[in-house]
């Protein structure tokens, strides 16, 4: 994900801001990392350049 996405995303649960923790950056994209809610502390992974902002109970629902 590009860092400017931070301007439009928020915690899906309480809509508060997210802190970005970068694990691996590739050119202008964050490939691996974490988004952490500044209010509730919930962590959302960034994997293969894609932030997963599903609420935790939906993360496990994957049918595929």
């Amino acid at each position, binding site marked *: 994900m590009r860092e400017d*996405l931070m*301007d439009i995303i*928020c915690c899906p649960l309480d809509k508060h801001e997210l802190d970005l923790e970068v694990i691996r950056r590739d050119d202008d994209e964050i490939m691996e990392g974490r988004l952490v809610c500044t209010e509730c502390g919930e962590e959302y992974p960034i994997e293969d350049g894609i932030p997963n902002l599903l609420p935790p109970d939906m993360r496990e629902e994957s049918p*595929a």
Partner: protein
Amino acid sequence: MTDLAERRDLDQVYQPAEDTRLLAETAAECVGDGDRVLDVGTGSGYVASVAEDSGADVVGADINPLACQEARENGVPVVQANLTDPFRNRSFDVVLFNPPYLPTPPADERNDWMEYALSGGEDGRAVIEPFIDGVGRVLASGGEVLLLVSTLTDPDAVVDFAADYGFDATEIASEKHAFERLLVLRLQRSTDG
């Protein structure tokens, strides 16, 4: 990745069809230079790409991780998300959505990603209604929603539901097919005038 594995992934991501193209063409007419646009249920990213070609600043969202990967490979900035849940208040000038709308009896529901992309539950509106419930929060002042619906989904019921959430809905595009008519509804807040 082997060809077979790639094929399997494609089978799990909704590929552009008549409904996709109608929404994309309509979006191209409505979206302007510099508009901030969210494409919900972006799938392969086709509608988002067309909106981007019109000069908009586009983000795609999909619940399906395989769709997110494919949209990203097609150059669309993407977030794995349930509808508009993880987007900030008043972030978008235009929100696009080609929802799952096929009415599907519970006994026929399969549990895979293509089912997510197609099935609108028993009345076809199981995903459309929560979308309308949530979308107002992320719309900027004067913002609008372009929502694809089918005559299979009872567009009048969608219009009534939208009215309950403070939206005026107008049909702005339509296309006839063998078993249904596809249409694009534009939803604008009643109070925006």
